[in-house]
């Protein structure tokens, strides 16, 4: 995929959810651009639509209207097979609940996406490097259940980085962590952005975390304010 100035361009994005009989307009026409090297912090109250926006950008959901361009390529109507390929190679996703596979060790969780592309040996080597980068070189063979919340989130970060993605999405990555672990995870993001020039989009409603990015947008009632 050729590099464009913007990793992502969004035009008039709309998304409505049905909550029983009630329809909730989560996004009401959001437009934005995310450039390479950005660390965009998306903030807003609960239910404002910030996670919904992240899900559309991360190709985990389909918008009702609007367009998303990923490195210049329109992706909203792309077949699922190609969207899966994009998620594998170009997107790293970090969930609030860590979303690790419980039967896999830390090392296996990280190397799994790389095994889709390259040989197992090289996937293992790269996973070891990434886990060392987040200070988990001594926890390679630990199952998620044997790791603390902060450690699990670091494994998720290493997994998101394994295929050297164009962009990393983090959906309230510190929401389930204590303050020390949260600070630790945020510092990993900052380091990734500043030292390795990774493009990061992070959703948070922690006011003190908005300062870690170079751009902040606030979503309210499905619109950027």
């Amino acid at each position, binding site marked *: 995929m050729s590099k464009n100035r913007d990793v992502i361009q969004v035009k008039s994005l709309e998304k409505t959810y049905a909550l029983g009989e009630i329809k909730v307009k989560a996004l009401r026409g959001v437009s934005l651009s995310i450039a390479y090297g950005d660390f965009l912090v998306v903030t807003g109250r609960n239910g404002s639509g910030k996670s919904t926006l992240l*899900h559309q950008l991360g190709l*985990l*959901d389909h918008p009702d209207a609007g367009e998303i361009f990923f490195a210049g390529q329109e992706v909203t109507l792309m077949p*699922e*097979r190609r969207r*899966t*390929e*994009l*998620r*594998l*190679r170009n*997107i790293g*996703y970090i*969930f609030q*609940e860590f*979303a*690790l*596979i*419980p*039967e*896999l060790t830390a090392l*296996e969780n990280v190397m*799994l*996406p790389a*095994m*889709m*592309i*390259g*040989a*197992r040996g090289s996937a293992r080597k790269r996973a070891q490097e990434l886990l060392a980068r987040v200070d988990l070189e001594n926890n390679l063979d630990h*199952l998620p259940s044997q790791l603390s919340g902060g450690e699990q989130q670091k494994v998720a970060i290493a*997994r998101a980085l394994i*295929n050297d993605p164009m962009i990393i999405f983090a959906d309230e990555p510190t929401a389930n962590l204590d303050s020390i672990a949260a600070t630790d995870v945020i510092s990993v993001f900052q380091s990734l952005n500043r030292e390795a020039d990774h493009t990061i989009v992070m959703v948070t409603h922690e006011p003190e975390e908005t300062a870690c990015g170079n751009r902040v947008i606030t979503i309210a009632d499905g619109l950027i304010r």
Partner: protein
Amino acid sequence: MKNEFKIPFFLLGRFMRGSNKWTLSLVIFLLAIAYINLIFVNSLFQGVISASNQQVINTSTGNIVITPVEGQEFISNAEATVSRAEQADEVNAAAAETEVPASLRYQVIDANFPVIAIDPEQESRVTNISQKMIQGSYLKAGDTDQIIIGRQVTGAQGAQNLSTFEGIQVGDKISLVVSGIPHEFTLKGIFYSKFLEADNRTFVTRQALDGLLPDLHDKASNIIVRIAKTGTEQTVIGQLRDRGITGTFNTWEAMAGQLTTVVDSFITINALLTTVGFLIAAVTIFIIIYVDISHRRQEIGILRAIGIKGYLIRTTYVFQSLVYTVLGVAVGAAVFFAVLVPYFWVHPFVLPLGDVTLAILVDDLIGRGFGVLLLGIASGLIPSIIVTRAKILDEIAGR
């Protein structure tokens, strides 16, 4: 592309390693029970069918029964015909039987059980009546005034005929009434083959028949032929015809009489139970694997979110189902062969048509095993297709 094919094996290995051992054991146990249910009922019915077929062959008809050509009452030159039949390659033994036109009388009771004249030694090579004596002894050449009778004739407990010689003992006198004239015989023995139609008969020697009805000397109502391999009757019939033996050739199946109806009924019931068994197995396997995969919805959502292709996820769960069912079939087969078959060999079902053990039909066991494996594949594939088509976010959220 080549690398991604390893993903299902990688995930399967980790899932099996990380699975709860008790849950895994329970799943395998349930699948084993589903397989045993499929093979046990079939083996039992096949055992019943096999036992009844074997009883007919062993106690009454042999493999082939040669009866007189149409319009004739007896086969002439019975001994020569027996000798000629025994010269055929596939024939183990042959024996002539002559039905005596006589009725039986014991004390004041008259009864019409078949009286059959035999050469005891020759007969013992085609039927196993000689080994089924429960009182007294079998006939021997030269017994001109001795008779043996089946247990049904004695009216013993469980016997089904109304007019019987209840209370008769070995050594008691029985009269054979031929053309209204009684001829006294001594009861030499009582046999019990556990096959009602066989235990309904009585036997005297051919020497005795010669004394009663000299005109029937060397004449036979039928000639019983035992062959080397059951199932090749038609081939042997061709060989017998080639040797110039004339008569009407019947296989044991055609002569099985009312038992044929019983066996046909068993075959029908077995087919029905097999169908029901497969449905039960299908539902059981589907539920077990569906529940297992449903519990992994969140995991499947995560795998999809990080870019693992849907077909690889489906393949993983199909492999997992396959491993479960292979283990289930293996455990089921082990229990069947190590426990059930030996148990019923030692403690057979005693039915009126004989002792029934579990029949082992390898083709059936393999076929049903493959059936279970196919059910396992379908049970893994269908829910995994459903789950991999759902919304990723719904799966991750467990909705």
